[in-house]
């Protein structure tokens, strides 16, 4: 049975919405096992979301409508980005050409911005601290994302994620060309930073002074908090899709509209995502969190890789 391209597009979004908490739960479970703990159930994030949706939403006295609108705006942004990136198919879907990599990055930035604005207007010191830090580090990692986009643009003459994935699949030479590997590694570091992972942030910490992203949502509760948590899990899936299906391993996607082939791409993607998640859990267990003022070194390393990628591409076409 052949699916229409619009149905596939819908399936992509549903996959991100429906399975994002599963991926978060599975990674937390792996992390706990690596630390010798029993860990939470894999489905725990679903129970957490259900609990939060049934709770009352409280709004700080000083906060305006922005505080309540921000989680909805962020969640909507995380619903739009999956339309632009290759999740299940090798061929571009109709809405996939609405925006390029930068378009996707703008939506992710808009989500981060709205959450930060909401945090800033709560008046809570830790939320404001997190908001300020998140914006600072987002600005520092942004050049890396830009240079990775430039690499894609120079290699494919477009900056469409579908085109880069197709190029990497086209030949082994393209997949292992030094600039592609460097860009992939730089993007990997950016994903580590954007998903609040060690060495940038301890995502499971309850120590406010070390928090960056996590601190921004401290004042939220109830359904708003549920949307933020769900959105955060979706953002993780989106970044994994970009890392895996565009740079690191763009294989295993469906090249036809056949229903079985499209649906098979879902477990294949999650298999690869669990592999990346395992790697992240290993990094979490092997390294310590960097001191706040040392995070710039991490960002500098990511920037270095992306700039070197551009240089060797520009000078030696490597």
């Amino acid at each position: 049975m052949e699916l229409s391209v619009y149905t596939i597009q819908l399936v992509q979004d549903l996959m991100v919405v429906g399975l994002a908490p599963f991926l978060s739960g599975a990674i937390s479970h792996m992390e706990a096992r690596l630390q010798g703990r029993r860990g939470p159930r894999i489905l725990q994030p679903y129970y957490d979301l259900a609990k939060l949706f049934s709770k009352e939403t409280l709004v700080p006295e000083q906060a305006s409508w922005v505080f309540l609108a921000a989680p909805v705006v962020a969640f909507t942004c995380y619903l739009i980005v999956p339309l632009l990136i290759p999740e299940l198919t090798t061929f571009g879907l109709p809405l996939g050409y609405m925006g390029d990599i930068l378009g996707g990055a703008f939506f992710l930035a808009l989500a981060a911005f709205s959450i930060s604005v909401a945090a800033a207007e709560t008046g809570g010191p830790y939320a404001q601290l997190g908001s300020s830090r998140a914006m600072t580090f987002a600005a520092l990692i942004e050049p890396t994302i830009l240079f990775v986009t430039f690499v894609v643009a120079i290699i494919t003459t477009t900056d469409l994620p579908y085109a880069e994935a197709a190029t990497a699949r086209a030949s082994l030479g393209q997949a292992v060309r030094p600039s592609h590997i460097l860009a992939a590694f730089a993007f990997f570091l950016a994903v580590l930073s954007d998903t609040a992972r060690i060495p940038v942030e301890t995502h499971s910490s309850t120590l406010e002074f070390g928090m960056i992203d996590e601190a921004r949502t401290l004042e939220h509760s109830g359904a708003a908090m549920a949307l933020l948590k769900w959105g955060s899990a979706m953002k993780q899936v989106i970044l994994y899709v970009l890392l895996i299906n565009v740079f690191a391993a763009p294989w295993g996607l469906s090249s036809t509209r056949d229903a079985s082939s499209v649906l098979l791409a879902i477990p294949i993607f999650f298999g690869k995502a669990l592999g990346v998640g395992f790697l992240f859990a290993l990094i979490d267990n092997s390294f310590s969190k960097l001191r706040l003022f040392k995070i710039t070194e991490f960002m500098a390393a990511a920037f270095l890789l992306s700039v070197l990628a551009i240089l060797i591409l520009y000078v030696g076409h490597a």
Partner: protein
Amino acid sequence: MGPALLAVSTLAAPPAFSGVADAIALLVVLAEFAMLRSALARTQVRLYAFQSLCVVGLAVLLAALRHVPEAYAVAGISFLIKVVVIPAVVLRLLAGVETEVAGSERLKVASMTLIALAVAAFGLFILEAVPVTSTLPVAALGLAMAAVLVAFLLVILRADVVSQAIGFFALENGVSVASLVLASRLPLLAEVTFFFDLLVAVVFFGVLVRVHHGRTGTLSTEVLDRLRG
């Protein structure tokens, strides 16, 4: 509506040989960037051993692809001297010495990285301006130049004797990459002369490190601020 096809013109991937040579040269440069920020002298020595191993890998690759039997000998001698002997000798010299060299950076790490990046870019662009018209991997040659310049920066920006010695050795690795890429058929005798030079430098730096540490009790060169007759 059928699947939308992508019609983009992609930049051709480099040939396999160039791609691998470029990747190895890149690792040589990246090892130097790691040396710039490493906090322990033994980490620097290990990074140097890794960097040398990359050079050995490049020599083996060239020997196999260009059918140069001498390059196998160069690879073997390189492995023995740069991967085994020099790191072992330097680590031996540092035995019993406090090897913490953190804090010897003259600038902050992020600033050093950015300056090193600018210097590496300068090296790459210089080589691009040289009209080399052959099948040589141009990027590898440029990266060798970048490795030499970043090694200079390592010597300048880290104020401790170990970093300065390792910087000099790493510089030699950059030159090795350039000579391998440009002239893999260089006579074995010439290569052996280079290795002899390197060994002399190791002994010289070894004596320097011991004497300096013996006199000042530190590896830092910041204390060398007076000229005595």
